[in-house]
């Protein structure tokens, strides 16, 4: 691990977002003679990753930028460090250090003076996200809070402030929204249509968008509210505002509310509110013993008088025969995909089978790192690990497409899948118009040996079936 020349440097006061630094790290890692490179903010998670790569990181704070490069020799190290500077300079936007020209806005409050009616999209690290979101509310603007790691009491305070002003807080940890046709975060490309969605889950929303799109039903708006909105603490503050907005929209014929079941003390309140609206609402509360998202999509289609299609499956191009293992290993980038797959599997296999379901979008894997829909590194490492584990019988993965997601997830995932000896099932959540070209992604994943489903629940059932030895 320690061969070659190693350079580890802390830059205090330097900052770039995790997606940008991912790109920088990739640029540097691609330099001839560079064996490993990571440029990242020094969060505890990133320091773990750096240590895992064999770098010693000196005492630091999460506000320091770490530049870590291991190279074959001095010359390669020099090239690598030059590439760090070049890549950082390339991503630095113009206007950062102007003299006399327009100064860059440093806070949302400042930007909103120039753009007073903007919707605010916040994806800074958690503690600062609340502060930026309050700027939006102070300026009378709705806000989408992509950021996670926000404590629930802060979420409550923020949403109370918004409710008092008739404003919408989408989030925190809101990965997906479609507002009047504009996709925000990891939104899929959908046609306008009669459905409006209120979703406590980003990937749950995306699954519904993908299934409805396949069935030929469009969506006008899909408003995220954050996974805890219907908890007792938050009390559905954002859900009510989102429902109110969609009810006011004449183009919305049917509202779908996707969430875990509300806390008992919230349920009656929300149901009463739903009953007071002029627009019908389909409640899709997910959980053990309840319909999954595919069933919810089918219910929506029937309610609108549409035919329910057969959800597409692409069969693998190469057989993975597997070995003596007995366990299902699910590695997910979408939290709701993970939960849904686990519930499906447990309904068939029971809860004590020792099967694995990991959500790499969970807070513990994203502090100071890009979401796994953008940065697949950590899941790919785990994929190699479960593939090498003799107890693994079947691997279940999700791939989520849309704006903001990895531009070509199959490029790295398909070769990795090809190395997995066990059968692999993939739920590919996306629409035909997504920028990644869903059908090409499906073809590449299938060619590598994965069975590819549009329905996440369908993929989970198939994975369970494969455990039983069904080819």
């Amino acid at each position, binding site marked *: 691990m320690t061969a070659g020349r190693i350079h580890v440097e802390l830059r205090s006061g330097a*900052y770039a*977002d*995790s*997606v*940008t630094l991912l790109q920088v790290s990739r640029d540097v890692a691609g330099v001839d003679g560079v064996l490993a490179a990571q440029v990242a903010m020094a969060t505890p998670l990133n320091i773990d990753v750096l240590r895992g790569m064999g770098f010693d990181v000196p005492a630091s*704070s999460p*506000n320091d930028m770490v530049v870590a490069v291991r190279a074959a020799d001095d010359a390669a190290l020099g090239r690598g460090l030059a590439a760090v500077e070049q890549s950082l300079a390339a*991503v630095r*936007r113009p*206007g*950062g250090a*102007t*003299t*006399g*020209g327009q*100064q*860059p*806005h*440093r*806070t*949302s409050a*400042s*930007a*909103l003076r*120039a*753009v007073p009616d*903007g*919707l*605010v*999209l*916040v*994806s*800074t690290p958690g*503690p*600062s*996200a*609340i*502060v*930026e979101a*309050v700027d939006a509310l102070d300026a009378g*603007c709705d806000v989408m809070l*992509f*950021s996670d790691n926000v404590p629930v009491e*802060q979420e409550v*305070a*923020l949403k109370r*402030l918004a409710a008092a002003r008739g404003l919408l807080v989408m989030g925190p940890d809101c990965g997906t929204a479609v*507002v*009047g*046709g*504009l*996709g*925000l*975060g990891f939104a899929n490309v959908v046609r306008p249509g009669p459905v409006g969605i209120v979703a406590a889950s980003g990937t749950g929303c995306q699954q519904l968008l993908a299934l409805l799109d396949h069935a030929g039903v469009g969506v*006008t*708006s899909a408003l995220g509210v954050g996974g805890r909105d219907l908890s007792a603490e938050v009390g559905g503050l954002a859900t009510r505002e989102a429902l109110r907005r969609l009810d006011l*929209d004449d183009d919305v014929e049917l509202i779908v509310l996707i969430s875990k079941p509300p806390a008992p003390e919230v349920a009656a309140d929300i149901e009463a509110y739903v009953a007071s609206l002029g627009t019908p609402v389909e409640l899709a509360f997910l959980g053990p013993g309840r319909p999954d998202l595919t069933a919810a999509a089918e219910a929506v289609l029937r309610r609108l008088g549409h035919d329910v299609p057969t959800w597409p499956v692409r069969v693998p191009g190469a057989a993975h025969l597997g070995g003596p293992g007995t366990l299902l290993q699910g590695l997910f980038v979408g939290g709701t995909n993970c939960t849904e797959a686990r519930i499906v599997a447990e309904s068939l296999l029971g809860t004590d089978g020792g099967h694995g379901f990991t959500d790499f979008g969970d807070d513990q894997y994203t502090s100071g790192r*890009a979401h796994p829909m953008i940065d697949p590194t950590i899941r790919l490492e785990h994929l190699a690990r479960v593939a090498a584990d003799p107890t693994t019988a079947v691997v279940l993965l999700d791939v989520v497409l849309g*704006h*903001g997601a990895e531009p070509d997830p199959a490029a790295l995932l398909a070769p990795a899948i090809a190395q997995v000896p066990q059968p692999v099932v993939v739920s590919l959540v996306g629409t035909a118009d997504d920028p990644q070209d869903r059908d090409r992604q499906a073809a590449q994943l299938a060619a590598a040996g994965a069975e590819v489903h549009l329905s996440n629940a369908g993929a989970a059932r198939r994975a369970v079936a494969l455990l039983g030895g069904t080819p």
Partner: protein
Amino acid sequence: MDTPTSVVAVGADLLASAVESQAVPVTRVDWRPPMPGTEDDLVEVALDPLRADANARALAAVLDVQATLVDVAPASEVLGLEPGQFLHAGPPIEWGRASGPLRGALLGGAALEGLVADPDDAVALFESGSSVSLEPCHHRGTVGPMAGVVTPSMWMWVLEDQRTGRRAFCSLNEGLGKVLRYGAYSPDVLQRLRWMGGVLGPLLRAAVRASDPVDVTGILTQMLQMGDEAHNRNRAGTLMLLRDLSPALVSAGDPADVADVLRFVGGNDHFFLNLAMPACKLALDAARGIDGSTMVVAMARNGTDFGIQVAGTGGEWFTGPAQLADGLYLGDFGPDDANPDIGDSAITETAGIGGFAMATAPAIVRFVGGSVPDALATTQRMHEITLGENPRWQVPVLEFQGTPTGIDVTMVCRTGILPQINTGMAGRVAGVGQVGAGLVTPPAEIFPAALSRLADLARARG
């Protein structure tokens, strides 16, 4: 729902680009982590239900004030200052920690008041402290440039907000070079001060009392469009003051004295500074004591400490070490000769002029060691840390944008941008006087300290 017409994106650029690819314009925020250790306090204060309204009221209160010059009178009369009482610039300080220029000014002040015959004899007086006392100007509704020493016999400008009757005070400006406020106390310095008390003050009083009240806020509006930023350049303001007072001044006393007064005022381009400062003080004092407001109401230095006071934290000073200015030196002086930052004159920046209005004063950018693009950028940058703009005080070269007004402690902590102050530099050693002028900022740590107190108060309110 309507498609958003524009999006403000803060955070990952990828998400901003995804919006742009859908043909919706994006305004990007150049976000960076806040000052270390401030994250939790920033959240607490952001979510304080009092904050937004308190800041709106604080800013409106400042902008509502109209400062008029209503009188000129000795400090003993208008401040009730008694023999042995000395006011000084900046936050509270005792003799033992006082810097050279403050000590020099106190020694000269003691001699001026006749407490000692030779200024140097006053050292023992201040060391014992038994018959003298030091108090910040700010605690008496007063501001003082540089050392800011005020003694009972000094004559003061009296400014009033006629709507409320509130008043603010400042001494008369002595000119540049070897002067008391820069710590000089030689016989010529004291002789000039005696003339100011015996001739200048009484004549100005007669003129002011015989004239309509002079609209100091209005003069500030005009001078900002005439190349003054009202801290290091007060040339146009001084001439407008003369314009307003001269008709009454010429018949106020002995013609020779009147001529001396006109010559003295006309020869001192900084004369108006001592009216700009109390006008700013009067405006900012209107925002004091507004619970929940994060607006800075005073920035002041005593030559040792730099202190700020905040609308929502009462009379508490948040202090740190005063910094050395970066700028140009007079004659043979150099950095080793300069004392750290001193004076209440940063009240001008607190009110949105001085360094904050640098864009409107390109004539002096070289005097403080800058360039014209720097000046434009400085004013624009200060908008990032202020609550609003002053619609009366406009900067023509920036399309008549109002000056950046109301420094917000939270914005300073969020952006790391420190208030930019234009300042004169006093000699480090008592008695030297002015050695240069330049640009300076407060010590960064006083803003997180103020934020922490604001957060404590918000938590205590629940």
